[in-house]
């Protein structure tokens, strides 16, 4: 059975290519796929049902590719493939040759056929759902066949939303049923249906899905709108195949759940309502296709009643109606398509005299129409008689249901007459509508379907016997109704006659009926649907407008408020924490002074309006932090903090010189902001204290002394950075590299003139003065003493930086500190000599140092990986050198050198961007 689906999929994929090659003549060729399916279903019928197969797919999710062709399955297979075949043949003449959308149409149509075939064969709830949704999607794409028409776009959207809504509800229902039953196999569930409260809720959900798919009230509105699709689509999807999916699901589950109260309580009343309302509405439609669509809605209501009753008798009538409806409704749709094709209109107020110009078409339509109205000796009659009989003999006799069905039948007779009259009759005052000839490929499928309605009717007994396997599975055996062309039962026949008579009456009084219908209409379901969608859109816009402020301070406020709230919440959770902390005010005498200094700095930073003051105060708090680090016992940290803070200050100053701007005032008031700040500060500090108090285990940091000894280092922090936790250091220097790239990217944008060349012409070099630097600032900006100092100290400081790099393992220092010191040396030269001096100081292309540093550190890591199997393993040796003493040399030094080079590269690039390039911009602006 999978091979059939693969065949359809392959055909669907080939369809665009074939149609491009052959045009619309490709359709009969493509019809081979459904034809194969039809043959297969006949073969199954002959070889005996049920045919089954199962392949695991995703057992963890309960998904399996299980197929099963039992009686209703084969019936639907034959219908889906048979009508599919005929519709494809029909389509080859329906569309004008060379129409643009043919390729799409062919592909989607076959894909739909495959999905529908899969749906009726599936024996796994989820597999059924898979195909179910696929039919929805392809139907969406097919309804939107004419994408430029707003009506078809809207119809497609409506069908998609309503059926998917139901589908999703159904999915939840499937999961509940499957979990209750312990299996997702439909045949197993039907054989041993689960019970209980959740299952009842699940059934309601499943019914929602089934009813939405089959356009039952209150979901009916999508089906008439879907008539915007081309007629072959309507004939196939909206008459024979897709809309039957919901009814088919009811038929599959009815043997198991038909006697559950919720099943009947939902399906039967909604079915009756739909049958009557649909028929009533069809009585005043003037578009033939929409008339048929409302007729379909009504008939689907009828089918829903039959399977909703859940007895054997009703289900038997149901399967009979299922077949009959597919035959006559598909035929009628095809006839409407032919009429449209021949005359260019479907409006029954404009069509006239067609029975004369298209007599054979008229004959086929009358035949199919008679079956629809339930006239003997046609298939429709057989089904309706059996339905009436099953209703009459139903144990829990339901007058409303019976009355509804009779009324519905009367309405059916009425709109059938109106349809036939509207399409073919000669109307007084209207000239005969000119009509082209209908091509044989369009006429034959319609005629064949119509004739089948006559041919199959006498075989009712055979059909009844063939369905025995299915009908026998119902727990409620009913009264043993049988299908027959002439059952001889008097009451159903009388009711039928009543329906014929009142139907004729309705047709006779068609004008007043239409007027009354229009007048009685309180609310149009289409308007209702769209107003709901509009409200949804409006609600979405308003909700988003409220939530999505688009303002960073708002987002930050929310974040920080969450910190405060969650922090307070965890303090107060269950019981307030034990606050008997062992607190001393300070442990080192210098601490009070530093802290006072820092708090003063912080307060000034808050008060500062000018950016420069703000930067200085930030720096002050930073230096204070460094001092606190020192008093805590972390000289490395203090050194690094001090150097980094200095560098930040320089960069701050470089940028701030370009910003002659007024500080923007904050939107939030200061006390409010401060309040949040204080709460966050209190929460975090309180958390820190609580956590310190709560510590039970020995910190890992205590083990580091031994580890550092193993690494051969004296400075434990250095050992951590360069050896034990060198992975973090590598990451950190990478971050530095990338952020420097970001600075370059933001300042230079995409200009090629990036490299700051050395000063070639010597234009800025003042003549006749001693030159301490290779270039100099213009006269007014020079400070000779600064130049001299810069020149003299440069190399000394560089040596110092290398020293710091080398001694990192034994004393305070390290690659990062060394790098910043070297960077500061370069900075001083830049500040003294301007941008050309920068190029002279570091005569390397941009990015090269960064890249080299990164390559060096990661390369060391990789070398460790290659040599010993663990990345970053350092290879080490002790070497004694003059002046420096015993040095512990290891690849760790190379790694550290990488960090050093990276930092120098970073300073160089940042100076180039925020220093030199900004100089250049200022110069350009001054010049212009």
């Amino acid at each position, binding site marked *: 059975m999978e091979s059939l689906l693969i065949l359809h999929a392959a055909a669907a994929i080939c369809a665009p290519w074939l149609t491009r090659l052959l045009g619309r003549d490709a359709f009969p060729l493509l019809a081979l796929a459904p034809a194969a399916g039809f043959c297969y279903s006949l073969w199954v019928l002959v070889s005996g049902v049920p045919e089954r197969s199962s392949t695991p797919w995703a057992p963890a999710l309960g998904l399996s590719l299980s197929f099963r062709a039992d009686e209703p399955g084969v019936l639907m297979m034959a219908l889906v493939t048979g009508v599919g075949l005929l519709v494809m043949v029909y389509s080859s003449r329906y569309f004008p040759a060379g129409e643009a959308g043919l390729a799409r149409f062919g592909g989607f149509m076959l894909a739909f056929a495959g999905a529908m075939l899969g749906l009726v064969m599936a024996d796994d709830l989820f597999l059924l759902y898979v195909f179910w949704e696929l039919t929805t999607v392809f139907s969406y794409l097919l309804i939107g066949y004419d994408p430029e028409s707003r009506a078809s776009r809207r119809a497609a959207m409506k069908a998609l939303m309503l059926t998917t809504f139901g589908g999703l509800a159904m999915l939840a229902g499937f999961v509940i049923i499957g979990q209750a039953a312990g299996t997702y196999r439909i045949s197993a569930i039907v054989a041993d249906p689960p019970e209980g409260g959740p299952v009842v809720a699940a059934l309601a959900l499943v019914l929602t899905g089934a009813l939405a798919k089959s356009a039952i009230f209150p979901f009916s509105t999508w089906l008439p709108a879907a008539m915007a699709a081309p007629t072959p689509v309507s004939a196939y999807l909206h008459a024979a195949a897709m809309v039957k999916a919901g009814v088919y699901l009811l038929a599959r589950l009815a043997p198991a759940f038909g006697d559950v109260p919720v099943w009947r309580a939902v399906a039967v009343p909604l079915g009756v309502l739909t049958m009557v309302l649909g028929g009533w509405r069809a009585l005043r439609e003037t578009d033939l296709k929409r008339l048929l669509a409302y007729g379909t809605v009504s008939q689907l209501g009828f089918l829903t009643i039959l399977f909703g009753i859940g007895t054997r008798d009703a289900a038997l009538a149901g399967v009979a109606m299922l077949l009959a409806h597919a035959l006559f409704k598909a035929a009628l749709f095809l006839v409407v398509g032919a009429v449209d094709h021949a005359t260019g209109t479907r409006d029954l107020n404009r069509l006239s005299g067609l029975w004369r110009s298209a007599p054979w078409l008229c004959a086929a339509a009358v035949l199919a129409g008679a079956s629809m109205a339930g006239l003997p000796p046609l298939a429709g009659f057989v089904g309706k008689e059996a339905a009436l009989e099953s209703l009459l003999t139903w144990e829990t006799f339901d007058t409303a249901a019976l009355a509804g069905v009779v009324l519905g039948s009367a309405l059916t007779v009425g709109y059938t007459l109106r349809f036939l009259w509207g399409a073919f009759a000669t109307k007084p005052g209207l000239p005969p509508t000119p009509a082209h000839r209908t091509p044989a490929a369009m006429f034959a499928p319609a005629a064949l379907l119509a004739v089948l309605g006559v041919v199959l009717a006498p075989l009712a007994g055979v059909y009844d016997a063939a369905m025995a396997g299915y009908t026998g599975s119902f727990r409620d055996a009913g009264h043993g109704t049988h299908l027959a062309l002439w059952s001889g039962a008097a009451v159903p026949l009388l009711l039928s006659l009543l329906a014929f008579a009142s139907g004729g009456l309705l047709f006779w009084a068609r004008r007043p009926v239409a007027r009354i219908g229009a007048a009685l209409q309180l609310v149009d379901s289409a308007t209702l649907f769209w107003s709901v969608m509009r409200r949804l859109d409006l609600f979405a816009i308003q909700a988003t407008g409220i939530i999505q402020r688009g303002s960073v301070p708002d987002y930050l406020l929310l974040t920080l408020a969450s910190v405060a709230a969650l922090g307070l919440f965890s303090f107060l*959770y269950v019981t307030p924490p034990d606050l008997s902390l062992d607190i001393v005010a300070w442990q080192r005498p210098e601490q009070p002074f530093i802290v006072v200094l820092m708090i003063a700095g912080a307060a000034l930073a808050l008060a500062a309006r000018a950016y420069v003051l703000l930067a200085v105060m930030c720096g002050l708090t930073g230096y204070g932090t460094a001092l606190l680090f020192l008093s805590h016992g972390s000289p490395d940290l203090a050194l690094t903090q001090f150097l980094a803070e200095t560098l930040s200050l320089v960069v701050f100053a470089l940028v701030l010189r370009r910003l002659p701007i007024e500080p923007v005032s904050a939107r939030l008031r200061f006390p409010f902001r401060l309040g949040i700040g204080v709460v966050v500060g209190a929460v975090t500090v309180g958390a820190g204290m609580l956590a310190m108090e709560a510590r039970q285990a020995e910190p*890992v940091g205590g083990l580091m002394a031994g580890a550092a000894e193993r690494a051969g280092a004296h400075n434990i922090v250095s050992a951590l950075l360069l050896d034990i936790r060198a992975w973090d250091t590598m990451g950190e220097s990478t971050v530095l590299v990338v952020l420097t790239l970001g600075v370059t990217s933001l300042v230079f944008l995409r200009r090629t003139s990036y490299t700051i060349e050395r000063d070639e012409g010597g234009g800025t070099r003042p003549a006749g003065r001693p030159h301490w630097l290779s270039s100099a600032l213009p006269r007014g900006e020079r400070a000779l003493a600064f130049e001299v100092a810069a020149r003299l100290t440069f190399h000394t400081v560089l040596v110092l930086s290398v020293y710091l790099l080398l001694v990192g393992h034994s004393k305070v220092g390290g690659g990062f500190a060394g790098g910043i010191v070297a960077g500061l040396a370069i900075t001083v030269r830049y500040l003294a000599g301007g941008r050309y001096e920068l190029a002279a100081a570091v005569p390397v292309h941009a990015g090269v140092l960064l890249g080299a540093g990164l390559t060096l550190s*990661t390369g060391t890591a990789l070398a460790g990986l290659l040599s010993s199997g663990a990345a970053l393993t350092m290879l080490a040796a002790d070497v004694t050198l003059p002046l420096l003493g015993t040095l512990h040399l290891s690849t760790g030094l190379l790694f550290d050198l990488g960090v050093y080079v990276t930092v120098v590269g970073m300073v160089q690039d940042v100076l180039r961007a925020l220093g030199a390039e900004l100089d250049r911009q200022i110069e350009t602006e001054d010049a212009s």
Partner: protein
Amino acid sequence: MESLIAVPVLLPLLAAGVKLAIGARLRHLQSLISIGTLTITAVVSLVLLFEVDAHGPVVTELGGWESPLGICLVADRLSTLMLVVSTLVTLCVMAYAVVGSYADQEHDAPMAIFNPAFLVMVAGVADAFLSGDLFNLFVAFEMLLSGSYVLLTFGGTQSRIRAGATYTVMGLASSMLFLIALAVTYAATGTLSFAQLAERFGPLDTHVKLLIELTLLLAFAIKAAIFPLSAWLPDSYPTAPAPATAVFAGLLTKVGVYAIIRLEALLFPGGPVATLLMWVALATMLVGVLGAVAQTDIKRVFSFTLVSHIGYMVFGVALSTVQGLSGAIFYVVHHITVTTGLFLVAGLIERRTGTTRVERLGGLMTLTPLIALLFLILALNLSGIPPMSGFLGKLALIQAGLADGAPLALLLVAGSLVTSLLTLYAVAKVWGKAFWRAPEPAVAGTVVESDESTGEDPVVTTTTMPLALVGSTAALVVLGLSFTVLAGPLSALTDRAAAELMAREPYVSAVLGRGR
């Protein structure tokens, strides 16, 4: 085998270093390095996945320092699965970026910026997945964030600066929160190794434990874009260059989700936070999808659905069952692939028409059938149309939620179904307007926008779509579809990964076992 674990982090970093060192010259070599590196990484990740799935978690001790002294990288089922998907996806995106105009712009750049930043970001993502140390996780986050800061502000146009400010500031806020949590964690436990933390958190004071958990959760929630900390995402992602946005959307938020999974499963199993997460997940789903319905720009629609679907994953995590966790992992895998693909398609649309604003688009189905097909498949996959992976992930989550059966879980199942429907509505609206409707008379080569004052580049539309550009997008589509075919093995793998996570013991003993 252990030695391979560091490769996905080291190799991209080395490549970034080499590329920087050789500068913007030798563009072909540059592309070769990028693609080659990521290909090797992908192969290594796949090997690791098979190894780990067969023999349990593998640990490498960096520098030879055993845990808890040094940092270790841990490859368990979850981390290697994430690694495999992320490297495959970044490989496709890199190919896209190299062929597309994004690499063309590199020509004029002062130095190679896009490629190194991208590679560092990839390395950061890999490090985040593998890291077995809380502080190293912070460093990994910084790596990927700094890479993304640079990519987001690439070119320095006005809209990117605005978006970059939002993104950077929120990124910094999350980093600060992470640091605060680190301070409290070390103060309370005296260790940073995940495995040791898992042991030491157990007997800790409830308040401190809750504080740490909530602070970390907040930090990760910003990264994962969970409501109410999600609003920054749709404001910032859509403005970046298409391949950058694609990776941001696909991967970066998932790193946050990954961190939350680790946090909840390994460090803080059970506890009062699950209920909070449930509510937050519900709000994220609904707020996100309503946002998507309200938008009229393709990239923004997808940014909002991204937020919304993060809610699915949080839902799965919050259930704290093997089933729920497995569903969440499955959904993460699916969502990485699909979202990345969608943003690449948005990039293709922009290249073709010069805009992604829905009201200015029309008739794309007839103009560019191939792009339309790619969009359709991805959009349907996103909406959870079966049999695609979006449906499978959703199904796993619904099953887990219904199996849980608590009223709140049922409410979340209902919420996720509504979200699914509205997602479909949002993408169908885009499809209906941008791909159906009458085609706009857009001519190839039109200069759509050019404004010197904002620094925006002139957008030039083009009909030429280099094969590799469409090909790399198509590769992502195929990858997404392959999850359907591989649903059996994949869902079994996510089940095993979830069971391993819930058990906790395999992870802890793999890391600490040898040290004792």
